[in-house]
């Protein structure tokens, strides 16, 4: 997978892509302790992982969580079976790390975890102001549940069944959250 270009979307994870020989080699070398090989994997995938973390958790936490993801990947490389591309394996691991962090924060924040009302307040502002708001920034302001589902489904290309199982909810819930997120984001399209 190529991630160096600027036109890479989050969906380019392309499940089932033939694993690139160079990445398999680097993954095997990293599993055996080669940190240079692991750094190459980091360089190839950091933009995608960091973007996921930023959209799911916000810019403040994204750097730290991205580092956690790669440290975790280093520890778990021995379990990588090559049944999917390395990027797909890494992304799944990243989603799990991000959701665990999310849950930890949610516990800490208690009843404020849902972040209800932030977007509704935003929505009440004049359209001219909203139009200037960056779409990415608007995603970060979505209520928690809607944001997670929206990022995983519409940005990252996961299916409802996968998201439901990751979040431990029903796919009826994820469908409702997705719809809510899209409805809230309509006014941030910049037009």
């Amino acid at each position, binding site marked *: 997978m190529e991630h160096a270009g600027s036109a890479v979307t989050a969906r380019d994870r392309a499940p089932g892509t033939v694993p690139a020989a160079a990445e398999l080699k680097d993954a095997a070398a990293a599993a055996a302790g080669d940190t240079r090989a692991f750094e190459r994997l980091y360089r190839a995938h*950091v933009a995608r992982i960091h973007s996921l973390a930023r959209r799911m958790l916000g810019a403040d936490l994204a750097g730290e969580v*991205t580092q956690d993801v790669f*440290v975790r990947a280093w520890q778990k490389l021995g379990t990588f079976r090559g049944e999917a591309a390395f990027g797909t394996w890494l992304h799944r691991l990243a989603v799990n790390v991000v959701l665990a962090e999310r849950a930890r924060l949610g516990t800490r924040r208690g009843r404020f975890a849902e972040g209800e009302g932030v977007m509704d307040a935003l929505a009440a502002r004049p359209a001219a102001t909203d139009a200037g708001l960056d779409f990415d920034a608007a995603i970060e302001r979505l209520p928690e549940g809607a944001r997670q589902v929206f990022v995983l489904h519409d940005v990252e290309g996961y299916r409802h069944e996968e998201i439901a199982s990751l979040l431990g909810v029903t796919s009826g819930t994820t469908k409702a959250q997705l719809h809510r997120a*899209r409805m809230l984001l309509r006014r941030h399209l910049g037009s």
Partner: protein
Amino acid sequence: MTGHWTERLSEYLDGELPALERASLEAHLAGCAGCARTLEELRVVAARAARLQVRPPGDDLWPGIAERLEPRAARTLDLGAARARRWSFTLPQLAAAGLLLMLLSGGAVWLALTRRPAPAPAGISTAPRLASAPETSRTADTAVSAAAALPAAYDAARYDAAIAELEGVLREHRGELDPATVRAIEENLRIIDRATGQARRALAADPASPYLNGHLAEQLKLKVALLRQAAALVGARG
């Protein structure tokens, strides 16, 4: 515009409404400008999200990662007696060799099931590396670049006989091998068996496929090679 239908627009957009509801919603859309407009907006939001690009972090996060990476323990896995020294490898080497076999068999299944033209999985040439354990990168190199020609047909009975014989040898001498080695071998055998099973099931639906036949033959060859290695380990300790 009615609230009921507005709530279903995302599902409709994603093609997830059952046929009956889809038809009812379409009938409603034809006469409701509000819902039609909302649907269009939702479509734009989803399309915009799919086009969002990834962006690298502002700071280089690598130094902070590098300092947290635990060095891999280069413990030597001594398989026993002095004369077996040539069969000892470090755990990482063994892990890498095992990983490689997994990569090959896993990747091969995917290739077979989707029929995408791609290099064939490395066959019999891979397994000897498991035992002789050269430096890891060479192992990966050799196996990944090896593009064994696929046989047009295979003799299932011949492979099955060889497999049965080698499995017998391994069963008999299992106790003489290091448990970690046994685990690595068995894990790889399970992976190959899974690939073989998938290939056989795919063949049942498409018995004439040269690719699937070749793929199955490759998996069986891989299995024979792995079993031979295991038997050789036992022999080396003789």
